[in-house]
């Protein structure tokens, strides 16, 4: 499998160096342990928002650092949770004296490493709260699984909580807000191919030309089911149904929608998906008030798409609209 890399073991470091070189006005990168912070950190008196996870999901999380979103991100090896020392150093670097919120995607490794980091940070006098994001409807949250995965809602949580922090909300307020975003968001993903992890050199699993994988995560792992490939409209109908019935979303709800490319799918296809999703929502009286279409939380070169839907209210919408200035997301008039 061809990749635009040098040595596999240097992928993360070289990408971080590239990000630092591309966005010196927005971010600063530290190495060993690896973490990225907003260029004006620490912001005195502001609650700091930190997230992180394995690399390979770009722009998540490093691309979301800056005004109105993350204060810091901790990138692990590709698809591998970062280690506690990364989060500890990041917390120390961005702590403005108002505490730190860890936004954690629900994966066993992420949860363990962030938990250890939170304890270490607390023992250094940093107030830490943690919220786990678990929006993926494909997995049953039961005693017999590791729980629902944290996927697209992470982007929403980072934006909304980042805005709240920029406006001076407290750690307790932002923690509650983050839980509310998580509770009102649902996601599902479908893949046409797996992805190739640099150190593996070949796709994690193979799909036939006429097959699709339904209920995927963001690490290239097989999904819940393998089905014959359908049309974009039929795939969207299936995905929408899974998400809409899970919350459930109802007629008259205002929603923010993300049609997210998994990394290997062209934008032209994402818009075809959005077209059908928009129709479905209209038919059901669900108002899409804002949207994102593009690559926001990817799995390297996986072909596929995920849909995330957030049932929003006035407060969340205002925070969504608040100014943001990061490598991957920029809007709002800035004075």
């Amino acid at each position: 499998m061809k990749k635009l890399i040098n040595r596999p073991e240097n992928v993360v470091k070289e990408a971080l160096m590239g990000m630092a070189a591309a966005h010196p006005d927005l971010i600063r990168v530290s190495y060993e342990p690896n973490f990225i912070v907003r260029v004006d950190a620490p912001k005195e008196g502001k609650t700091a928002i930190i997230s992180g996870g394995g690399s390979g999901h770009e722009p998540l999380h490093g691309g979301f650092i800056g005004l109105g979103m993350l204060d810091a991100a901790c990138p692990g090896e590709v698809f591998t949770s970062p280690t506690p020392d990364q989060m500890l150093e990041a917390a120390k670097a961005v702590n403005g004296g108002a505490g730190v919120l860890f936004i954690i995607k629900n994966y066993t490794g992420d949860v363990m490493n962030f938990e250890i980091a939170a304890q270490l940070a607390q023992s250094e006098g940093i107030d830490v709260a943690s919220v786990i994001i678990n929006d993926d409807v494909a997995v049953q949250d039961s005693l017999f699984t590791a729980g629902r995965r944290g996927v697209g809602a992470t982007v929403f949580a980072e934006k909304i909580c980042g805005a709240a922090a920029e406006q001076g909300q407290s750690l307790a307020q932002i923690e509650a807000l983050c839980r509310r975003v998580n509770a009102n968001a649902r996601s599902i993903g479908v893949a046409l191919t797996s992805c190739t992890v640099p150190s593996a050199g070949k796709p994690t699993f193979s799909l036939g030309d006429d097959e699709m994988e339904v209920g995927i995560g963001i690490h290239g792992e097989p999904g819940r089911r393998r089905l014959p490939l359908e049309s974009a409209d039929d795939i969207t109908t299936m995905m929408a149904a899974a998400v809409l019935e899970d919350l459930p979303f109802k007629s008259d709800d205002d929603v923010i929608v993300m049609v997210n490319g998994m990394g290997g799918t062209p934008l032209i296809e994402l818009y075809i998906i959005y077209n059908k999703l928009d129709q479905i929502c209209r038919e059901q009286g669900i108002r899409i008030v804002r949207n994102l279409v593009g690559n926001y939380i990817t799995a390297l070169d996986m072909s596929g798409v995920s849909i995330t839907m957030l049932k929003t209210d006035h407060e969340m919408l205002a925070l969504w609209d608040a100014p943001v200035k990061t490598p991957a997301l920029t809007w709002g008039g800035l004075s």
Partner: protein
Amino acid sequence: MINRDAIIDWLEAIAHTYDENQQVLTDLDSPIGDADHGANMARGFNKVAQKIPSYAERSIGEILNDVGLTLMSTIGGSSGPLYGVFFLNASKIAFGKDTLSAHLITTMFESGLMGIVKLGKASPEDKTMVDALSPAVEALKAAVAENKTLSDSLLCAVTAAEAGMKATIPMQARKGRASYLGERSIGHQDPGATSITLLIKAAYNSWHETN
């Protein structure tokens, strides 16, 4: 009796086996995971191997503690904390000792297992490393209780670990990334059970000529 040199031999043997088996572990971690287990374990223990010169004058307890911390900050994922806590717990048992008897080795492995169970909360048949490590610890305890030599006891542990590792094949995963696959995780050997078995085998290979 196991002394510092023997512990260092073991650490080198682990690093070597994870290097040799990186592709094996990657291949096991692909159908039911995200294909990073081989790279993670190799990276973690290569970092440990690089630190070995600094272990020359340190006690066994200090060495195992440093190994635990090194793994915790190098491996990442869930393996980092789990293997990290295994060695951190082991280091507490070895604290203050210059040599380790078969009995103490057993207690060390058991303490490591308990740390893993407490942190990861896996139960038997969840299809995890515990399914190989737990039978291995039981076999070690039974053998040592019968006054078998360390060498023979470790062989019992290896045999039990390998059986436990293979027994994960028909299990449906209830923990970790494989659990997202539900029934599709059945029919695949667990990568974590495999890597812990390799670690136990490395102990046997390093120590079976000691007594």
